[in-house]
């Protein structure tokens, strides 16, 4: 993985010193809450329902064991012994004290981590495919480009006070596992006939209040022009994006109001005029960063079936929680943060330390966070899988449900977030209880549930096969259900099936929906394909049948 040089380290250290001074001035009364807010937000610090919430950046979801141990130690010392992994591959602490945050940041800096630009109206953590570098279908590893973008965006002199938050994702595979089409900028790696690397550039995707799928502004952007083109997009947005209404300030609104053709013309003109002064991405710099992401020193192994003769629960785990690796003899292993009874994405300090130790033994000391709120050990020799399974099971991290209905995404919801309208944790628990039978889950197959506690859509509900959105209805927590969303492969926004349902009715309604699927599916048809084939009508009819609580 990328390792800081003296410049990277100095910048993070100086940021800590700056933030320490900002906190000091705030606590001394020199900076009012209104003055302090944009400063703390640009360092990942929210003031939430119970306490501040600190969002720590995990650039493109890559961690080493030392960093995960540091996160565990920080969560134990400054928080309540756990953290929450988010859909943007970051880690949130829910209970730090404001006065401790500078010390937390200083400890993070010692392991080459930070919280820079994890919130606020600026360029956020750059995210990537969690199978980057090992996926069999990959064009090129997106992570070197993510790292370059991270550096380019960090404390950018021109683009630190944008109209609204700005999210960039990079994907290098045919299957888009980074949800790049619902980002402000989605970069999809391409390789030309001559073997040159470039990107197709999508702009204007996003979830939130007015969900939109990104549109292709440029089919082919050569790698050396990456920064120049990003600057052109950001400059058009910075100058012309709306600042009078927070709900209309994302770049998707600007793109829609100008129309794709005019937006593209503006960006292209800006690019042509400004590229001479834009930061150059030299071949030497690309090579320097690429050097950090070389292939691991894999052993020469052969693929075999490690489940032969093993118990059925190991076979289930192997089938659901591991993935193909491009190197023979290896698998990628999901660390499920979706145990039934647990909060999706939550992880205790002890679990973090256990996974760090395991990663050091069997996966080159590296750990990845996924946008589905799990972790991944990317390079595990197949002959160690049985042992890995037993260790993960002992840690409570081997729930064999990856890709199934209970591998759901959920934001922290009303229990923690001051923006939320409704709880998500309680609903997640209901769903886990109602769908606790693994054979039933396996029969249902691949279903993505994505749940958000409010319109801001941190839980990506619009792109869930089943989306659940918490709404406030006269002071009560109700839930709107949508079907047919998807963020990988064919990006689509889900369709709301009808009136929202009361909290205790969410899981029963889901059961009626998936039962409808079981009746209507053809052969091995996945849930999402049945919904696409038949539309939402048959599901709507059944979802509300004999359903007095619907209103």
């Amino acid at each position, binding site marked *: 993985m990328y390792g800081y040089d003296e410049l990277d380290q100095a910048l993070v250290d100086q940021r800590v010193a700056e933030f320490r001074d900002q906190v000091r001035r705030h606590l001394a009364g020199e900076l009012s809450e209104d003055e302090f807010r944009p400063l703390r937000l640009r360092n990942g610090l929210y003031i939430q329902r119970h306490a501040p919430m600190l969002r720590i950046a995990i650039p493109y979801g890559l961690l080493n064991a030392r960093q995960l141990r540091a996160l565990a130690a920080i969560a134990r010392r400054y928080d309540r012994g756990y953290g929450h992994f988010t859909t943007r591959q970051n880690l949130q602490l829910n209970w730090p004290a404001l006065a401790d945050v500078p010390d937390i940041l200083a400890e993070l800096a010692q392991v080459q981590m930070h919280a820079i630009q994890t919130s606020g109206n600026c360029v956020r953590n750059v995210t990537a495919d969690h199978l980057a570098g090992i996926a069999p279908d990959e064009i090129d590893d997106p992570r070197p480009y993510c790292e370059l973008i991270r550096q380019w965006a960090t404390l950018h002199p021109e*683009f630190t006070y944008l109209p609204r938050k700005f999210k960039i994702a990079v994907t290098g595979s045919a299957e888009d596992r980074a949800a790049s089409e619902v980002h402000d900028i989605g970069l999809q790696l391409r390789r030309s006939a001559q073997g040159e690397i470039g990107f197709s550039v999508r702009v204007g995707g996003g979830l939130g209040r007015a969900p939109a799928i990104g549109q292709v502004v440029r089919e082919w952007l050569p790698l050396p022009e990456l920064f120049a083109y990003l600057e052109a997009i950001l400059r058009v947005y910075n100058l012309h994006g709306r600042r009078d209404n927070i709900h209309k300030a994302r770049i998707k609104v600007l793109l829609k109001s100008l129309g794709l053709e005019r937006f593209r013309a503006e960006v292209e003109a800006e690019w042509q005029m*400004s590229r001479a002064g834009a930061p*150059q991405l030299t071949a030497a710099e690309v090579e320097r960063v690429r050097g950090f992401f070389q292939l691991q020193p894999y052993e020469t192994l052969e693929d075999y079936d490690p489940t032969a003769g093993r118990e059925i629960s190991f076979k289930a785990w192997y089938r659901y929680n591991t993935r193909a690796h491009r190197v023979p003899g290896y698998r990628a292993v999901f660390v499920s943060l979706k145990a039934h009874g647990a909060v999706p994405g939550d992880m205790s300090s002890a679990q973090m330390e256990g996974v760090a130790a395991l990663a050091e033994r069997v996966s080159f000391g590296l750990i990845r966070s996924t946008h589905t709120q799990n972790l991944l050990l990317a390079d595990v020799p197949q002959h160690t899988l049985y042992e890995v399974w037993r260790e993960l099971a002992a840690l409570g991290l081997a729930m064999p449900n990856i890709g199934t209905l209970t591998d759901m995404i959920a934001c922290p919801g009303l229990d923690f977030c001051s923006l939320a309208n409704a709880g998500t944790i309680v609903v997640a628990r209901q769903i886990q209880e109602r769908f606790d039978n693994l054979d039933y889950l396996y029969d249902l197959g691949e279903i993505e549930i994505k749940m958000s506690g409010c319109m801001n859509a941190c839980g990506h509900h619009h792109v869930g096969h089943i989306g659940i959105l918490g709404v406030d209805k006269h002071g009560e927590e109700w839930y709107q259900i949508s079907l047919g969303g998807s963020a990988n492969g064919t990006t689509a926004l889900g369709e709301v099936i009808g009136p929202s349902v009361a909290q205790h009715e969410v899981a029963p309604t889901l059961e009626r929906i998936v039962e409808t699927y079981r009746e209507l599916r053809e052969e091995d048809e996945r849930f999402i394909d049945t919904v696409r084939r038949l539309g939402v009508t048959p599901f709507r009819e059944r979802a509300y049948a004999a359903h007095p609580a619907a209103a």
Partner: protein
Amino acid sequence: MRHILRRRDIVEDSWRYLGEEVGPGDPLIVPLAELRAERERWWNWTGRLGARLKPSDRVEDLTADLPRLDLVAVEFPNPGDGRGYSQARLLRERLRFRGELRAVGAGVRQDQAFLLARCGFDCLEPTAAASLEAVRSALHRYDVAYQPGAPQVELRRQRFFGRGAAP
């Protein structure tokens, strides 16, 4: 008497804004809209002339007047409005403005000083309550950066450079 930070120096401001008390031949800053409305009048002003941009003003509208101008003041009504950063870079890099580039308003504070200077501002005019000493020392919070920037801030190390710039 208003004070400003001009490069590294805290100095009295000899410039006047239109609407303030102005003597004949005083250096005068007029809003872009005013300059466009009465171009001949302001070009004939006997003293030095400056223009003041609002965040919504188009920098390109100033092109024809730049040869007459010794100063451009860019407004930052609050810290969250970042349009002025782009306006500054356009003035410096595209329109090649070499006069004084001044950031003015409630959005000009010590916590923005480093970024403002990197975008080409060589003069900062915070609201009266701000400590200019604090703003000045904030220019040195960082001695490294990733991106190219204006020469107003001296850096020890920088990662990326513009075309033709020596690495």
